[in-house]
């Protein structure tokens, strides 16, 4: 159990650091926030990182390197979601 918590924490912290480096805003700048498509550090970056880490862990096993990659992919998916899904 302790191991799994460390893996999730690793992916969470990695995603937050990468999101900071990619200059995502902390919260969306558009108001009201609930209609904003702009991605930010608090949403949806951590959710994507934890979901990807859950998939990686169940497919490949408990590796700390995979947790780092899950965080990286989560932040990248959050940053480039407009390019992937099209501008709203």
């Amino acid at each position: 159990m302790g191991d799994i918590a460390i893996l999730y924490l690793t992916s969470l912290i990695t995603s937050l650091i990468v999101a900071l480096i990619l200059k995502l805003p902390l919260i969306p700048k558009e108001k009201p926030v609930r209609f904003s498509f702009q991605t930010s550090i608090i949403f949806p970056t951590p959710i994507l990182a934890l979901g990807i880490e859950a998939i990686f862990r169940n497919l490949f096993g408990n590796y700390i390197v995979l947790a780092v990659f899950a965080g990286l992919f989560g932040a990248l998916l959050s940053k480039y979601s407009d390019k992937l899904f099209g501008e709203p």
Partner: protein
Amino acid sequence: MEIVEIIKVVVAGIICWLNFVLIDTYFGLPEKPGVLGAKTIGEKIRDIGGNIHGGYFMGNIVCSPDASAGTLLASIMSYLMGVEGGLIAALLVWIGNRLCADPGYAGTIGALTITAIIYLLSPIIEAKYFIAGMVLAIFTIQGFEHKYASILLGKIAKKMNRGE
């Protein structure tokens, strides 16, 4: 024994109903239709004597995965895989939201909150009862009686300052 199971399904259904209706209303589903289909459903429900904002709410539920879909998917994934399943459900709901031109706040937050609720209540009510309960909860909104369901949803929206 069977009576206990029925009570568990009903209690889980009430929890699911509160979870998705409150989160969807908070994130503004009754305020405006996200896509054209939701607008059409809302106007149709207004024409049969319902509330337009309740109608938009019901249209938005149909047209993109919001907190009701998040609640159902997270219940199923929690039943299969535990808390990790709920995290995967939240990721997939967000992807589905973006494909449907929806920012994705309601769906992912709904999936995460029901995952937390199922985890906390797992010694008393197992995840399988939440799957059955969510089917009942969505039936009361979308299947049973559209007119009165939309009026109730409109009242909740008004109370939470979302829509008129």
